């Protein structure tokens, strides 16, 4: 069999038997009444002991949601979602909020241990694990946040969004939905109505966050949607690097994940936001898997601010996701680095929006799409400049790599300039891994699986380099695993 044909077959065979996070945890849980009604929303808000303003905020979002339609423009296909068959809240019993590590259910700790997520501060401090503070979100609730005290010494707030609503209402009210309005889109309205937990970060002026902050999302319960809400605020002259990871058990039904992430960077502040998205992608026939419909947007609100998105997308059955930057402040900078890998019957429609509003704003987009199996992988990107945005600059590079000939790659760039001084450059390439390349590697002793990992890692090197060290190694391995599953 010619090498590439064989590769395609192997890639087919791997499917998701190799999805190593496919197990689930047995826990007693508490769930909201099934379906989406005002009652569900009241239940969630009550469960979280929310102040009245928050409940009203949610109900308002729900009203808006009811009047909206599911978007159909993305290059993805999936059966209609029945919101009345789904649970909108599920939490391990007795977990009303994050606790200290000693109080957390040992089953839960084991889960995160198995996932390789460092929650034990002791180990981290003694250098056994890397220097990361973690907020662990299990289904609908945050179960623990590490290093809170240490961070608060510097005035940094890192906690679950539920806690922030109670403890820092002034910040939450000021910034929540200030980047992504409730009715921005169908899923953001849905999220605003029913969001259950997520992380909150505030970095005070002129502070460099001394460690990586990270949220680790795990969907465990069946028939349950996960709707998390993340809000990161970098005040003037501050810096933070934030990581997000996610996995889910292997189940036959599709599960919905509709998150909203908002970033705000004030004058001279910088936010670096990295994601390794590894939700369950469904099996080799396209059964099961997560629907990942996410709205992520950063607002470079102040002068000279910078927001940089880096994403490695390997999981989910259907992905609909466009981390974007609003370049409002003069001289602000937006970046988007993306690796999107689709295999089996996965569908990805992802990209970014760079909206240039301020003067001398610049943005950079590096997108690497890798398609294998029967998958479909689309890059959709918008670069626009406002009349006021003198000297806006964008450079976009979109590369697609195909493995086999049953998959597809699409590039859909939109460019809108209302300012003649804008300079927007766009480059795109499509390539294939050839039989000759595989043979050449083989002749030098490198087997098919390693050859593909080598070539693919070379293909996405520019993006991998943008990830924080601890993540880069992990991501590089993941790239290998999602394409050939040689590592268990």
């Amino acid at each position: 069999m010619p090498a590439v044909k064989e590769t395609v077959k192997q890639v087919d065979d791997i499917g998701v038997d190799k999805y190593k996070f496919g197990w689930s945890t047995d826990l007693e849980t508490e769930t909201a009444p099934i379906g989406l009604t005002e009652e569900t929303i009241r239940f969630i808000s009550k469960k979280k002991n929310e102040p009245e303003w928050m409940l009203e905020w949610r109900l308002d979002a729900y009203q808006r949601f009811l009047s909206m339609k599911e978007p159909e423009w993305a290059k993805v296909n999936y059966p209609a979602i029945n919101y009345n068959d789904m649970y909108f809240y599920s939490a391990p019993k007795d977990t009303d909020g994050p606790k200290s590590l000693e109080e957390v259910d040992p089953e839960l700790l084991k889960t995160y241990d198995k996932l390789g997520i460092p929650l034990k501060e002791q180990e981290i401090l003694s250098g056994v694990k890397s220097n990361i503070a973690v907020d662990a979100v299990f289904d609908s609730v945050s179960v623990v946040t590490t290093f809170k005290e240490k961070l608060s010494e510097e005035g940094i707030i890192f906690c679950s969004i539920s806690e922030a609503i109670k403890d820092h209402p002034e910040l939450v009210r000021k910034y929540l939905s200030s980047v992504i309005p409730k009715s921005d889109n169908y899923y953001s309205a849905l999220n605003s109505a029913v969001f259950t937990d997520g992380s909150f970060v505030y970095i005070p002026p002129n502070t460099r966050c001394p460690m990586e902050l990270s949220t680790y999302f795990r969907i465990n319960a069946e028939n349950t949607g996960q709707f998390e809400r993340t809000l990161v605020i970098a005040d003037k002259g501050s810096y933070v690097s934030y990581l997000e990871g996610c996995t889910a058990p292997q189940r036959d039904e599709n599960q919905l994940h509709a998150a909203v992430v908002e970033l705000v960077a004030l004058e001279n502040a910088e936010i670096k936001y990295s994601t390794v998205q590894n939700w369950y992608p469904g099996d080799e026939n396209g059964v099961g898997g997560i629907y990942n419909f996410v709205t992520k947007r950063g607002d470079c609100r102040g002068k000279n601010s910078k927001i940089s998105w880096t994403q490695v997308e390997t999981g989910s059955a259907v992905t609909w996701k466009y981390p974007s930057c609003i370049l409002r402040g003069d001289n602000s900078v937006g970046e988007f680095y993306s690796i999107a890998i689709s295999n089996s019957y996965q569908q990805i429609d992802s990209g970014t929006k760079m909206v240039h509003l301020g003067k001398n704003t610049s943005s950079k987009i590096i997108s690497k799409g890798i398609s294998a199996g029967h998958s479909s992988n689309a890059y959709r990107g918008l670069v626009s400049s406002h009349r006021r945005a003198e000297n806006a600059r964008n450079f976009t590079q979109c590369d697609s790599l195909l493995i086999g000939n049953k998959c597809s790659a699409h590039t859909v760039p939109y460019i809108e300039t209302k300012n003649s001084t804008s300079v927007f450059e766009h480059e795109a390439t499509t390539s294939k891994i050839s039989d000759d390349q595989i043979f050449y590697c083989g002749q030098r002793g490198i087997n098919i699986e390693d050859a593909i990992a080598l070539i693919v890692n070379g293909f996405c090197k520019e993006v991998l380099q943008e990830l924080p060290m601890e993540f880069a190694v992990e991501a590089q391995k993941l790239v290998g695993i999602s394409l050939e599953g040689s590592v268990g």
Partner: protein
Amino acid sequence: MWGKKSVMFNVSNLTVSVEDNEILKSFSLDVGPGEVHAIMGPNGSGKSTLAHVCAGKEDYTVLNGEINLNGEDLLDLEADERSTRGLFLAFQYPIEIPGVTTLTFLKSSLEAHYKANNREVLSTPDFMKLVKKKAAELNIDDSMIKRPLNVGFSGGEKKRNEILQMALLDPQICILDETDSGLDIDALRLVAEGVNNLRNEKRSFVVITHYQRLLDYIKPDFVHIMYNGKIIETGDSSLALELEKSGYNNYIK
């Protein structure tokens, strides 16, 4: 057997077709340890096909015959397994791999060989030292090995890069497919020296070439003329000189 010439690598009665065209027709060749065999022959006679089939390329149908290295039949093995058993092919047209630096490629290749042969993998500094030393011998500078593999390399650079890999992998049987074509005079001498440095009583070479000039530098023990899928004449190095003078017509019946 004592007194009788031993065979390390041999091809016997190899018949190979591509898309129903027979390219190799009961081809046979015996190579003893330390020997250098030159194969010459007109365009299209099947030289590269022979090299590819020995190395395990997949587009060919082997209808008959065997390929043995140290008594093991290679035909059942994958290309990477043949490589780690000690077969090296210097390509007539080396392949480009964008994004993968030459250095990264060499490291993956060497590690695959070490692992397959249960040897301890070199540390990165030791690996770097080794590569730099071998590269310097072939006049390959550091900037070249930091570039993506073969991408934008000149014809001569590609060929020298093949010899660099050969020197690193320490093979038993080296098949060189027109490594001399596209080389300038200095590069030809460097490459030939590279090959000569690797010659020893155990390592053998099959050198495919159109020009006797290379054989001035790399003295072959045997010269074969290949035509229409098989060897039609075998001699010593004087055969190559004669071919250069009078062409193939005297041998093609």
